[in-house]
Each structure stands twice: as C-alpha cells, then as structure tokens.
C-alpha cells in the first residue's frame, strides 16, 4: 500500500517524510535540496504494518494512463499545501486535476490535504489556522462540484515543529489497514475492563500510532506518550546491551502526580508501556486507583497480545 506525497515545490513534502520517518530534526529541514525524482521509502518495522511513502518532485501532475501502475498501488494521496505562501485557488485547481486522473484508475484512494507550516507568526492563534483551513476546504469543494467529481477529502492542520504531523500521518496509516478495527475494539475493552483512561498502539520506530480506543484523542496525551517512547529508546540505546534497544521485556512505568495548576479532581496517573508485538507497543494512561490492579491490567494486555498474534497470523 502506497502513500503519495504531492503538492507544490517547497511546500514541505520531503521535510515531512524525513522528520517522521528518518528522525531529521525539524530545523535541519531548512537545508533539504529540491526533490528531482520520486523517492521511495518503505516502513516495515513490523512485518504486518508495512507501507511505502513516495515523495514526488514539486508540482508532479498525474495522468490516468501514464501513471496507471503507480495509482493502482496507491492507498492514499496527501496533498501538501504551504499555508505560509501558498495560493489556495491555484492549489485547488491542481489538486482537482490530480483527483480527476487518479479516480479514473483507482476508486479506493483516500485523499488527504495537509494545510501545512501553520507554525509561523502568521498563525499564532487557532482562529487564524481555522481561516485557511476553511477557505481551502470551501474552494476545493466548489472545484470538485463544478467538475462533477465525487470523492471524500480529509483535512489536517500540520507542522513539522510539533506533533500535529505525527497525528495526521497516524490517522492516514490507520485507514490502510483493515485490522485496525479489531485493535480499536480490543483497546475499548481494555478501557471498560480495567479502567484504562487512554490507550495507544504505537509503531515504536516511527512513533505513528496504528490504533487508539474510541475516546477522543487529546494531542497532549499523544505527545506525552510519544515523548515517553523517546526516553525509553534513548535509555535503551545507552544502557541496553549490544544496541539491543527493544525486546519482549521492554517496558516503562511512570508515576505522574498532578501539577500545581491542576484541578482538584485530577488525581495521580500512571503511564504504562508494554511490548505487544515486534516493534509495536501499547502505551496507556491509567488512574492511580486502577493501577493498583496491575495484575488485571497485565492479564488483559496479554490477551490483547494473543489476539494480535492471531489477527496477524490470519492475514
């Protein structure tokens, strides 16, 4: 399953690919040269969670015939729009052309728009972000309507300088794997049976989460879980043996007490990480009281681990 990154030159496609999948630090993206030919990168940390990112040169146009082979393989097309200098009308025209050609070949493609670089002084508050977001959305809907094309598009506000880019890519990757639905069910039952507040399953290398329970995602929760993975990996690189960073016994327990500004109701919380499959970890937030029943939690995590193995075996 391929994910294509397309859009105008300099809109940030290569930066996104490098920051998320090659751990480039965001400020270093400044030095990236323009992409001259398509760059392919396959994520295969876990054999059952494999996908390919194709980073295209700027302004790549698609043709139903010439690009048939590419489009047949495609699961999602991400159009990256530079919210700092991009021209909405021009971009929407180009995106419409891409959709028109691609949908001739493959009706199953998901279309995703990143309203990207919303991190400069232009976008200090949410109203300003929502304004471009809405303008873009309105414009592309009109374009598609005029051209009589009927597809669904999902929009995201993104920046490589924070966690929004990881959140957006996680949501897209999740669309590509049917087994994600089962994972969500299992995480929901962890929620009901053990009182786990929020649970994510992460690909530990890319820090993409491939599933979370159905309660809404608070981006700060994602952030703290992903930050926790960073600490675990660094610690394991330094103190693990022979660069063996991650194994079946990898785990983390963190006790958080409420800060000085928290509401009175907020209690202490635990962050708990366990390995569930090759390079996949479960990270959850659990209240202090619920965490006392750690054996119950571990028991349920083991069940989850078993079912995960069965799902993967069936594939």
């Amino acid at each position: 399953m391929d994910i294509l990154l397309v859009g105008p030159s300099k809109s940030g496609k290569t930066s996104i690919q490098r920051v998320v999948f090659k751990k480039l630090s965001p400020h270093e993206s400044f030095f990236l040269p323009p992409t001259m030919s398509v760059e392919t990168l396959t994520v295969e940390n876990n054999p059952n969670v494999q996908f390919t990112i194709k980073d295209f040169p700027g302004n790549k146009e698609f043709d139903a015939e010439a690009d048939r082979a590419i489009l047949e393989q495609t699961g999602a097309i991400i159009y990256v729009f530079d919210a700092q200098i991009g021209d909405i009308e021009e971009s929407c025209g180009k995106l419409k052309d891409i959709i028109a050609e691609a949908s001739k070949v493959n009706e199953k493609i998901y279309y995703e728009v990143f309203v990207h670089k919303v991190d400069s002084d232009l976008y200090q508050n949410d109203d300003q972000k929502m304004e471009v977001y809405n303008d873009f959305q309105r414009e592309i809907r009109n374009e598609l309507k005029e051209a009589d094309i009927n597809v669904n598009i999902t929009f995201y506000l993104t920046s490589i300088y924070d966690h929004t880019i990881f959140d957006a890519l996680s949501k897209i990757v999740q669309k590509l794997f049917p087994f994600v639905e089962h994972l969500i069910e299992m995480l929901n039952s962890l929620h009901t049976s053990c009182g786990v507040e929020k649970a994510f399953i992460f690909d530990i290398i890319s820090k993409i989460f491939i599933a979370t329970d159905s309660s809404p995602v608070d981006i700060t929760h994602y952030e703290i879980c992903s930050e926790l993975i960073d600490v675990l990996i660094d610690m394991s690189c330094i103190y693990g043996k022979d660069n063996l960073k991650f194994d079946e016994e990898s785990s983390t327990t963190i006790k958080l007490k409420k800060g000085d500004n928290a509401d009175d109701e907020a209690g202490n919380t635990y962050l708990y990480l366990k390995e569930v499959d090759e390079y996949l970890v479960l990270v959850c937030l659990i209240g202090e009281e619920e965490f006392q029943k750690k054996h119950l939690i571990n028991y349920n995590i083991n069940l989850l681990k078993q079912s995960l193995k069965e799902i993967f075996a069936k594939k």
Partner: protein
Amino acid sequence: MATQDSEKVQKVLLMGRAGSGKTSMRSIIFANYLARDTYRFTFTVDINRSRVRFLGNLVLSLWDCGGQGLFMEQYFQSQKDQIFKNVEVLIYVFEVVSKEPDKDLEYYKNCLAALEDLSQGAKIFCMIHKMDLIADSMRDKVFEQKQQEIIDVSKDFDVTCFRTSIWDETLYKAWSDIVNILLPNVQDLKSSLKDFCDANSADDVVLFEKYTFLVIANHDNIGHKDDHRFEKISNIIKQFKLSCIKTNFQFESMTFKNSYFTAFVEEFTSSTYIMVISSDPDVETEAISFNIKASRDYFENLVTDSLGSS
C-alpha cells in the same frame, strides 16, 4: 526552611554579540523553553536580570546583556562599575559562524579588561555556539581553531571553551560543567554516591538538579563507554518533563527496562532527582527502590553541604 542567610548569591554575566544565542540558552536551561520556541525571541534591550534558584540555596543572578553595539558601548563606559563589579562568572557566547569575528574578539577583550579591574577572581567560560550550523565532519577542526583564537587573546586569564548548540545535548554538558564549579564541596556527595552505587551493585548512579536537570554528581561502576550519556539523558528527560507540564502533571518516578537493564529515575532530595542503573539479575528492583527512599534524608544534607558555607 532556608533562611535568607544561608542563601548564596552568585553573579553570572552572559555576554556576546546580538543574536549569538544568550537569551535562547538561558531560557532553555532555566526557564523550560524548547529549542524550537526560541526563534521568536527579539533582541534583548539593555540588560535582563533574572534570579534562578539552584539546588535550593544557590541563587544565580543572571545578567543577560543585550548585545547590540549601542548597549555594548555603554557597558564599558557609564555602566561599567555596575556590571563588572562582584562578578563570579563570565559566560561569553561566540556565534561560530560570525559576520564580524574580529569585533566579537574585540568586545570579549574589553570584558576581560573590565573584569581585571573590577572582579579579579571571576571565572571565564566561552561558548562557541550554534555548532549545528557547521557540517559534522568539520566541527572538531572549526572548534579547535576558534578555541585557539580565544585562548590567544585571553592572555593571563584561565578560560574554558565549550562547543554548544541548543539543538543537542552539548548545551547541557557546558552548563553542567559550569555549575559544578560553583559547588565547592561536591566531593563528599560524589563519594557517598559511590557507596550507594556499591551497596546496590548498581552500574551507574547520577544526581540531577530538580528544575534544570543539569548533572550535579555521578558515580560509574563499570566504565561506561559513552561519556556524553548524562547530558543526552538530561536533554531527553527535560523534554519529557515539559510535556508533563503541558498536561498539568509532574513526574515523580520512572522505570525503564529491557531484558538487560533497569533504570530508575526518581524524585530524590528536595532539589534533586536520582537515576540508578542496574543490570545485575540478582538484585531485586524493589530493593533498589527501597534504598533510594531510605537514603533520601542522608543525601538531603550532603546536597546542602555541597554548596559550601556562605
């Protein structure tokens, strides 16, 4: 409770040309900023003075001196006495890629001359900063060269140079070394950490200052190969700590494991965190946890004593 008398105030001057990164580094180390948030800083007008408390009783009076030409001129004339008197530490920040390297050195020499007049015992540190802008393969060479230039103009002054960047752990290394020099009795603390390490057959034990996560003291029982590991850990845990603050939490304790090691990071004395690494399969992790708690009070006093008597 600490009384006013037991407080020890040390004046630290942060100097360097405009845009060299003074405000950025102090905000990251002492005010919980992330590196990526510093691009918003506008220039510092005149002098920004702040007081930061370190290890409970040590108070650093940080003078962040705006580096624009106009202000600089005044520092050496009308404001000279006020600025250069009673200075304990001078930290001079050189931007590694500078448009006017000669002028940087000129201002630096002026600072040294002023200290010679007014604060003879002051300790001098130079940060060769924004090293991330130099290609990896060139960093050693560029640093050596800059360092030599600085030593050449420093004459009789003993100066320590650091290579730094806000984008990696080097900033923590430099500041940890600097604050360590302000702790005259840190030796006792170190030998007690050794005892603690031995008693728990641990591999590595470190004390971090609670708010900055700078390294105070450590003991290494196995001769670890990575000399920069603590600064890496400071950097990464500080990031984690900032995420906690955003969600209105503070972390009290953490354990990290894989099949080979267990790492504990816990709130320890009122002004420190401790990290203990164990890979001995015969040692119960609960025992280490217990020993950490049991030795808190003992270390509380040692930490206070490390500041020396005022």
